[in-house]
């Protein structure tokens, strides 16, 4: 926790200090892990509303006559199916299927898109994109000029509606509106997306107005019980909702089909795309391992990297990708990349937790659905 290495900071850094947040190094960014406690913030999002600073996430602008065809070559989902003011979840893979990143593409107009990347991957993504650029397109990493707040929870819409004349009920899941005025701040992109398993919005705006919007949202949501939230509960929330995290469920060492995000892989799209040959073959043959949910029936909490064994303890069948004691369900749960021979719901397995083999069983995911 020493401050010797130069960590990047979002425009809200001074607010963290004011609110006495506990800070961590998250992929090279000095970010709040919690403002009060992870469990308290977790429940606030499930029951009321929580506000997250996610300005560390990257935005890459892809613009030009060939933007659509280039993106369609670059990612696994079918970009031609994405309409203006709609967002699409997708993956970018290597020819061998390894996942470079997962992200959301926003179609701003017919020839203009944003790619919103994982903070730790932004530079890697940008380099990969520049290496493969084709046709009449301009690519710009605009991450530093854009801030992002996530307002999540069942009361998110009621809170945000107090600050804007735009009818939020018209922005349905995975759609967005551009140029919205929120709390007197112009040109906010309001997107009904999130990473918590709750209803809510992600708000993109000029980096130098983020602090102002943060304050106004916290003020507007007072009666609804809004809480400033850190990345700690963002992780437990997305985990319960079965949403993959890059570096845990998603890796360059396996494919999106194995990682459980096959819904974002369209091997049947007509045009060629990077990884198509591999993914089409893997899909036809069937994956040999996949991400499953595990519930610990013994005592212990699964954590990233722990080994998983067959029920008789003789065969190593995979590893835990994420795990915690679920704040909503009170159970000790894990996500694991397991051999498909042991991946059926109800299969008993063992997790090596320190020196012990602890009983667990494969369960359905997501663990939580609103």
């Amino acid at each position, binding site marked *: 926790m020493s401050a010797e290495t130069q960590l990047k900071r979002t425009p809200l850094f001074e607010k963290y200090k004011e609110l006495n947040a506990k800070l961590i190094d998250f992929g090279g960014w000095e970010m709040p892990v919690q403002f009060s*406690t992870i*469990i308290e913030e977790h429940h606030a999002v499930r029951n009321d509303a929580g506000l997250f600073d996610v300005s560390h996430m990257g935005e890459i602008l892809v613009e030009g006559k060939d933007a659509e065809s280039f993106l369609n070559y670059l990612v696994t989902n079918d970009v031609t199916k994405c309409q203006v003011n709609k967002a699409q979840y997708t993956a970018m893979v290597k020819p061998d299927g390894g996942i470079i990143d997962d992200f959301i593409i926003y179609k701003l107009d017919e020839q203009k898109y944003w790619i919103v990347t994982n903070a730790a991957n932004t530079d890697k993504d940008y380099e990969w994109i520049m290496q493969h650029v084709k046709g009449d397109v301009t690519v710009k990493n605009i991450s530093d000029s854009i801030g992002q707040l996530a307002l999540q929870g069942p009361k998110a819409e009621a809170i945000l509606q107090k600050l804007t004349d735009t009818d939020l009920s018209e922005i349905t899941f995975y759609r967005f509106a551009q140029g919205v005025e929120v709390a007197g701040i112009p040109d906010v992109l309001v997107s009904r997306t999130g990473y918590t398993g709750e209803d809510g919005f992600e708000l993109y705006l000029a980096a130098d107005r983020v602090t102002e919007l943060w304050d106004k949202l916290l003020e507007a949501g007072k009666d609804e019980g809004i809480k400033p939230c850190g990345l*700690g509960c963002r992780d437990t929330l997305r985990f319960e909702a079965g949403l993959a995290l890059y570096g845990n469920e998603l890796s360059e060492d396996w494919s999106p089909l194995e990682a459980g995000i096959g819904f974002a892989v369209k091997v049947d799209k007509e045009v060629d795309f990077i990884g198509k040959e591999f993914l089409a073959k893997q899909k036809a043959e069937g994956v040999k391992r996949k991400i499953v949910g595990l519930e610990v029936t013994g005592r*212990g909490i699964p954590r990233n990297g722990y080994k998983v064994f067959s029920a008789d303890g003789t065969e190593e069948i995979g590893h835990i990708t994420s795990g915690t004691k679920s704040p909503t369900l009170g159970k000790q749960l894990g996500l694991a990349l397991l051999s498909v021979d042991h991946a059926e719901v109800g299969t008993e397995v063992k997790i090596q937790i320190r020196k012990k083999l602890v009983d667990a069983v494969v369960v359905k995911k997501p663990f939580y659905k609103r």
Partner: protein
Amino acid sequence: MANLLFSKEHEWVLQLEDNKVRVGISDYAQDQLGDIVFVELVEEGTEVEKDESLGTVESVKSASEIYSPVSGTVVAVNEDLEDEPEKVNEEPYEGGWMVEIELSNPEELKELLDEDAYKAFIEEGGE
């Protein structure tokens, strides 16, 4: 808390008898860990050397080892923590105690910090 001694690994030690101590983790440690949701301790009768593991405390986010500040035999384990691990957050010096150890080398107590020295250690950013 005048009688408490501390290790640089953030355990506290309370001397109960000449050669018997109670051990837990400091208020600073529980605050750094955040919500504690699981505690697993060694069994009664285990012999431990100084700096060996007494068990694990887990927060929502991660697992941390507890290092024994002294050598000896574990003669009692706080079994309440199995069902109420949050006691470590709520009352780290009372209900959140972890084990009692019969000392094999009472001299080791002299190597521990008193409360003022421990506070100074934390303020210096001791990890």
